[in-house]
């Protein structure tokens, strides 16, 4: 019984009521992941489990048994250099207060994988052909699960666009 978080194995809590979010923040002191609404409405608690972005507030920690969890603390390189998307958020003012930012960035990292895989979204015109490319419309729709009360969405989309452009070059 173990959950691997950013490469380190931790025991699964005995009490099944403990959410993955509470395990991270309250027991492991990984406070980068944020508690927002605690009911699946805001995306602040987004983490990546086995490659897929999920909400840690609605995940029971026991359900992540045997899984690999990646949080905002696990995105930077071993030498401490920021993940390129973290750097892009800084350069494009992708936040003001910063509270939604770890969730935004974890969500966007996994979203870029979904786009590259060709997964469709609600705004995809032709389902059989796949996404309409990395358009702002596709990015906005795919990031709609992450709310930002400061209204930094334009900067967030700009940062993600830069990341996708850089990756394509």
């Amino acid at each position, binding site marked *: 019984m173990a959950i691997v978080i950013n490469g380190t194995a931790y025991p699964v809590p005995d009490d099944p009521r403990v959410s993955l979010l509470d395990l991270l923040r309250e027991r492991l002191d990984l406070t980068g992941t944020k508690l927002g609404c605690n009911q699946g409405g805001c995306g602040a608690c987004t983490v990546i489990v086995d490659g897929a*972005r999920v909400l840690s507030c609605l995940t*029971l920690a026991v359900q992540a048994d045997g899984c690999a969890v990646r949080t905002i603390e696990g995105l930077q390189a071993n030498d401490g250099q920021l993940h390129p998307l973290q750097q892009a958020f800084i350069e494009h003012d992708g936040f003001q207060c910063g509270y939604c930012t770890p969730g935004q960035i974890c969500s966007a990292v996994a979203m870029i994988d979904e786009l590259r895989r060709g997964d469709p979204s609600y705004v995809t015109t032709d*389902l059989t052909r796949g996404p309409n490319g990395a358009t702002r419309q596709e990015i906005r729709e795919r990031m*709609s699960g992450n709310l930002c009360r400061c209204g930094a969405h334009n900067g967030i989309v700009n940062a993600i666009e830069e990341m996708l452009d850089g990756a394509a070059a």
Partner: protein
Amino acid sequence: MRSFAYRRAADRTEALSIAGAEQARYLGGGTNLVDLMRQNIEAPAALVDVSRLPAAIEDTPNGGLIIGAAVRNSVVAAHPAVRTHYPMLSRAILAGASAQIRNMATVGGNILQRTRCAYFYDSAGSRCNKREPGVGCDAIDGFNRYHAIFGGSEHCIATHPSDMCVALAALGATVHLAGPGGERSVPLLDFHRLPGDHPEIETALRPGELITEIELTPSAAATNSTYRKVRDRSSYAFALVSVAAGLQLVAGKIEDVRIAVGGVAARPWRAARTEQILRGQAPGRERFLEAADAELAGARTFDGNAFKVELVKRTIAAVLSELAGVDA
């Protein structure tokens, strides 16, 4: 959240035997159930985690698809056969919730999600017959912008929130079940119950029964299909109304048409009257509006949701026009 026992089932047999031994609820992705438990609206003594049961999407001998109940919503939406032959199902799933929630939610859990009626959630301050049978319904004289216009009762006007189920209803999907009494199948259209005198009874599930798969049959109308959702913001919101529809034209006439409406009843509402009127007719926006009107003659509205009648009518006409390639 009240304490509960947690067991993870490795296979169907184990799930059924654990659930039979305890007063348990099955747990899929937890996106609705965990939230309801945190609000103390649900307080099961035990959870049987069925989210790791074998989950596959496979072809059936008649050219259809069988989708395991534990398959994640995002996997169904992205599956090539679903995108090609049942596009309304891909689009309906992609219209629901957020990417994070679709990655968590299972097919079985999506079908079994409970209403998002605010009075159902407000256990501290509101009356709700679904939550506490017999106490009354605060939605009927309350804020009912999101509530039912079809199939409600004096006890409940809550809607079923699923997008996926609206497409499954239009597709005529079958729900396969396994339980202590053996296996059986129920058409999705008969799976969710209208409230009547017992809004607390929401589905045809018997005690201990588990949804194991859903099955789709192929058709030309399923291939030429889509889903449109109308909501208060353009993404990540529940439907005011939604329409799943498929259309087959042969020699300029409507050979087959399937229409289901979401956000209007305690179950996906199949617009059977509209379908019946349109079969054999030539497509056209006026005809679509008239046929939708016939279905809406049976609507019953409340202070906050009378707008849904016109909205459903126009959305049906717009979706059918798109599928028929005529001017909307």
